[in-house]
C-alpha cells in the first residue's frame, strides 16, 4: 500500500524550517501545575502505523506526559511538563519523517455547535421514531381508549423534540423576524408550533387526529440537513486551518546589551532590532540595518523576481528572507504593519459577500407569506361556509403542515453537501454553502499573476542554447543555494551535471549571486553586472530574469528564467473564455512580465503594478457595472481583493489571510480546479432549482387536497416523507460519477519525507 508513501515534493513549501522552541512555547496552553498542552497539525498521518510512529516518537521525548493523535483531524495533542524549555516536538517528528506545525489555540477548543446539533438530532430522532411507531398503530386501526393513550404518550414524547431540538429553528426564526426579515426557519417554526398546539388541543379533547408525528419527523429531517451542512463547513475549515501558518508568531529580538530573546509579535515596539535568518519571513515592517540578502516579494507585492536587500532597504511584513541573515529595525507595531493594513482593507471591502442573500432565504421570502396567506384564506373560507371554528382551524393547520417546507429545507443543504464532497474529492475545499451559489452566478474571472497563474517557482527557458559544460558548472554551483533562481538552474541542469566538476569554496553573495573557485579559476553565477565585475545596463524591464555565468569575468553562459506557468493555466483560461466569461489579470508585478504572460494565455485585459487598493477599486468598478466577480489570488496584496469580490478562490500555498478570505481553497498544483469548481457549482445550482421545482410541484398537488379538508395525519406523513426522499435522491445525482482519489494528499504531505512504513 502506498498509504505512507512519501508525497510528491510539490509546491506546498511547508513551515520554514523547524519551529523554534520559543515559538512552540507561544503556541502552547498552560494547563496549570507546570503542564502545557500543545496542539500540532501533522498532515502526514494516514494510517495506524503513522499513529504509532508519531505517538512513540513524541512520548520518547523527556518531559512529554501524553501524546495522542487524532487521525480524522490529522492532529496530535501533546501534554508536556518541564522546567525550562519545551521539548523539541517538531524536531522529533521531523526525525520520524513527519512535518508538523503548531496549531492555533483558539481552534482546538472543540466544536460546541456541532455537538449541540448532534444532540438535538439524537433527541429528535428518538422522539420522532417512537411517535411514528405509535402513529402506525393508530393508522392501523387503534381506536377508543388505546388511541387516546397513544396520542397522550405521543404528546409527552413530542415535548422534548419541540422544546430541545426545535429551539435551533425557533431562535433563528425569531432573530430573523426581529430584524424585519424572514427566512426558511419562520414557516418551519410556525408550522411545527401550530401543529403541536392543535394536536395537543385535540388530544385533550378526544379528537381523532393528531399531528405529533408530522411535527417531530419534520424537525428530524431538517436537523439532518442542518447537521450535514455544518459538518461540511467544519471539515473545510479545519482542513484550511491545518495548513502551515506562513506568518511567524514571534521574532528574535536583539536587546541593547546584545543578548537575544524570542518575543511574541504583539510585544515588539517600533525601534526594536530583530534578527531574521535565511528562510524566515519578516514579521514586522522595518528598515534593514545590517546584513545582505535577497527578498522574495511574491506574496506581498506580486513581484516574481527576488530583490536584493541591504542596509537601508524598507521591508514589509510577509516578505521572505532568502539567502542571508538580516537585522532590521522595526518601524511599526504588529497591529500597524503591512499585514494588519491588509486585514483592515479586507474588512472594509467585505461588501461582496455580506450583501448576498442565500437562495433558500430568497425562496422563503416569497414562500412563507404565500403559505400563511393560503392557510389564513382556508380558515376564513371554512368558517364562512361551515361556521365550525374547530373544523376550520384543523383544516387550516393541515394546510400549514402539508406546505411546511420540509423538502425546501432539505433541498438546498443536501445538494450543497453532496457538491462539497465532490469538490473535496478533487482537492477543493469550500467554506460554506453560499459560496457555491455565488460561484455559479459569476461572469468575470480575475486572476492574480504571481503564485496563481504562475507557480511562483522560476523555470529556465533557454536550456537548449546553453553550452553543456557551462550548464554543468552552473548546476553544480547552484545546487547548494536556496535562492529560487539557483534552484531552477540546479533543477534544469540535473541531467547535465557530472561528477567530474570539482568546485571548492562555493560561497553565496546575497543580492549578487554565487561564487566558486576551482584551482585559480573563479566562477561567478548571478546578476550580470556582478558576474562580469562591472556595472552594466539594468534588466528590470524584461520579462525574463537574466543570470550570467562567468569564468574570471569572461561570460560562459546566459540563463534566462521566467516564472513557470501553473499547470493547467492555459487550458483553464481558454475553458473559461469558451463559457463566455471574461477573464482578466490583475497583478502587482512589472508591466512587461504581466504582458508577456497575458499574451501567452490569450488574455486581453490585464492590469500591472497594481497596489492592493487599486485591485479592490477595479473590482468595485466592475461590480457597479453589474458584473459578478470571481477573484483567484494568493498573496497578501490580494487579500483585500479576495474579500471584495463576489466569490474568491485561493491556492493552498496562499498567505494565511488570503486563505481565510477566500470562499474556496484548492490543494492541487493545477489551476483546473477553478474550472472544476465552477462546473460543480453550476450543476449544484441546477439541482437546487430542480429541487425547488419538485417541492413546488408537490405543493401544487397537496395544497388543494389540504384546503378541501382531505389531508389526514397519515396522508401528511406520507406526502412529507415522499417529497423529502425525492429531493434527496435528486441531489445524489450530483455525486454519481466515480469518486476520484483526493490528489491533494500528496500535496499536503510535501516534505513529509520518507518515513518508515513498517512500524507496528
Amino acid at each position, binding site marked *: 500500500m502506498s498509504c505512507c508513501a512519501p508525497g510528491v515534493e510539490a509546491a506546498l513549501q511547508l513551515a520554514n524550517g523547524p519551529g523554534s522552541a520559543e515559538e512552540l512555547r507561544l503556541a502552547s496552553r498552560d494547563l496549570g501545575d507546570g503542564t502545557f498542552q500543545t496542539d500540532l497539525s501533522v498532515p502526514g498521518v494516514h*494510517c*495506524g502505523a503513522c*499513529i*504509532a510512529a508519531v*505517538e512513540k516518537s513524541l512520548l520518547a521525548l523527556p518531559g512529554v*506526559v*501524553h501524546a*495522542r*493523535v*487524532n*487521525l*480524522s*483531524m490529522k492532529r496530535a495533542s501533546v*501534554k508536556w511538563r518541564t522546567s525550562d524549555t519545551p521539548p523539541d516536538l517538531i524536531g522529533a517528528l521531523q526525525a520520524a519523517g513527519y512535518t508538523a506545525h503548531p496549531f492555533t489555540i483558539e481552534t482546538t477548543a472543540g466544536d460546541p455547535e456541532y*455537538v449541540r446539533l*448532534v*444532540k438535538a438530532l*439524537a*433527541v429528535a430522532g*428518538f422522539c420522532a*421514531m*417512537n411517535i411514528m*411507531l*405509535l402513529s402506525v398503530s393508530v393508522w392501523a386501526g387503534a381506536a377508543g*381508549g*388505546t388511541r387516546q*393513550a397513544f396520542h397522550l*404518550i405521543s404528546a409527552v*414524547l413530542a415535548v422534548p423534540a419541540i422544546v430541545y431540538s426545535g429551539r435551533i429553528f425557533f431562535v433563528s426564526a425569531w432573530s430573523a423576524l426581529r430584524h424585519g426579515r424572514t427566512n426558511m426557519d419562520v414557516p418551519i417554526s410556525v408550522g411545527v408550533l401550530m401543529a403541536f398546539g392543535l394536536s395537543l388541543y385535540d388530544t385533550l379533547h378526544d379528537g381523532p387526529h393528531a399531528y405529533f408525528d408530522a411535527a417531530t419527523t419534520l424537525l428530524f429531517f431538517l436537523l439532518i440537513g442542518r447537521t450535514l451542512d455544518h459538518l461540511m463547513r467544519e471539515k473545510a475549515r479545519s482542513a484550511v486551518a491545518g495548513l502551515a501558518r506562513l506568518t511567524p508568531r514571534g521574532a528574535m529580538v536583539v536587546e541593547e546589551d546584545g543578548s537575544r530573546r524570542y518575543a511574541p509579535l504583539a510585544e515588539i515596539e517600533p525601534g526594536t532590532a530583530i534578527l531574521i535568518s535565511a528562510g524566515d519571513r519578516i514579521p514586522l515592517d522595518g528598515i534593514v540595518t545590517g546584513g545582505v540578502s535577497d527578498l522574495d516579494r511574491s506574496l506581498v507585492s506580486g513581484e516574481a523576481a527576488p530583490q536584493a536587500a541591504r542596509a537601508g532597504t524598507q521591508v514589509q511584513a510577509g516578505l521572505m528572507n532568502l539567502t542571508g541573515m538580516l537585522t532590521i529595525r522595526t518601524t511599526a507595531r504588529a497591529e500597524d504593519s503591512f499585514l494588519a493594513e491588509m486585514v483592515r482593507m479586507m474588512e472594509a471591502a467585505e461588501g461582496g459577500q455580506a450583501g448576498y442573500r442565500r437562495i433558500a432565504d430568497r425562496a422563503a421570502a416569497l414562500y412563507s407569506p404565500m403559505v400563511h396567506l393560503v392557510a389564513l384564506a382556508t380558515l376564513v373560507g371554512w368558517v364562512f361556509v361551515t361556521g365550525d371554528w374547530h373544523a376550520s382551524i384543523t383544516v387550516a393547520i393541515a394546510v400549514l403542515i402539508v406546505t411546511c417546507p420540509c423538502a425546501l429545507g432539505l433541498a438546498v443543504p443536501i445538494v450543497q453537501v453532496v457538491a462539497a464532497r465532490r469538490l473535496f474529492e478533487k482537492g477543493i475545499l469550500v467554506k460554506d454553502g453560499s459560496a457555491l451559489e455565488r460561484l455559479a452566478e459569476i461572469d468575470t474571472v480575475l486572476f492574480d499573476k504571481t503564485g496563481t497563474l504562475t507557480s511562483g517557482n522560476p523555470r529556465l527557458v533557454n536550456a537548449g542554447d546553453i553550452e553543456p559544460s557551462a550548464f554543468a558548472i552552473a548546476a553544480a554551483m547552484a545546487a547548494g543555494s536556496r535562492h529560487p533562481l539557483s534552484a531552477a538552474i540546479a533543477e534544469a541542469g540535473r541531467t547535465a551535471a557530472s561528477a567530474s566538476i570539482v568546485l571548492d569554496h562555493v560561497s553565496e553573495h546575497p543580492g549578487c549571486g554565487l561564487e566558486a573557485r576551482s584551482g585559480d579559476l573563479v566562477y561567478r553565477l548571478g546578476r550580470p553586472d556582478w558576474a562580469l565585475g562591472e556595472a552594466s545596463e539594468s534588466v528590470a524591464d524584461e520579462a525574463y530574469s537574466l543570470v550570467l555565468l562567468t569564468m574570471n569575468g569572461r561570460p560562459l553562459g546566459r540563463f534566462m528564467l521566467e516564472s513557470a506557468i501553473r499547470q493547467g493555466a492555459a487550458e483553464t483560461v481558454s475553458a473559461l473564455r469558451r463559457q463566455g466569461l471574461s477573464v482578466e489579470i490583475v497583478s502587482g508585478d512589472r508591466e512587461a512580465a504581466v504582458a508577456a504572460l497575458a499574451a501567452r494565455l490569450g488574455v486581453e485585459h490585464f492590469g500591472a503594478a497594481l497596489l492592493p487598493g487599486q485591485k479592490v477599486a477595479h473590482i468595485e468598478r466592475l461590480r457597479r457595472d453589474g458584473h459578478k466577480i470571481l477573484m483567484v489570488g494568493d498573496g497578501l496584496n490580494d487579500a483585500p481583493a479576495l474579500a471584495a469580490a463576489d466569490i474568491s478562490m485561493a491556492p493552498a500555498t496562499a498567505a494565511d489571510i488570503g486563505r481565510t478570505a477566500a470562499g474556496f481553497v484548492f490543494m492541487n498544483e493545477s489551476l483546473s480546479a477553478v474550472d472544476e469548481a465552477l462546473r460543480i457549482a453550476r450543476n449544484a445550482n441546477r439541482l437546487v432549482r430542480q429541487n425547488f421545482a419538485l417541492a413546488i410541484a408537490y405543493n401544487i398537488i397537496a395544497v388543494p387536497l389540504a384546503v378541501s379538508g382531505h389531508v389526514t395525519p397519515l396522508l401528511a406523513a406520507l406526502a412529507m416523507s415522499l417529497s423529502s426522499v425525492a429531493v434527496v435522491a435528486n441531489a445524489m445525482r450530483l455525486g454519481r460519477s466515480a469518486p476520484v482519489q483526493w490528489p491533494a494528499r500528496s500535496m499536503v504531505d510535501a516534505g513529509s519525507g520518507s518515513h518508515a512504513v513498517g512500524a*507496528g
Partner: protein
Amino acid sequence: MSYLALLVPVALLLGLAGLAAFLWNIRAGQYDDLEGAAQRILLEDDDRPLQDPSDNS
C-alpha cells in the same frame, strides 16, 4: 389491552437507554476520531481507551 401498559413503557425505556448511551458517547469523546479508532485496533501495544493524562504513566 393490559399488555400494552407494560410493553409501551418497556419499549420507550429501551429507546431512552439508547439515547442516553449515545449522548454519553458524545460527551466521552468517542466520536472525536472515528478513523483513528478504526486504525488503533491494529496497534499491538496500545489498546487502552482514552484516559485522563493526569493518572497516566
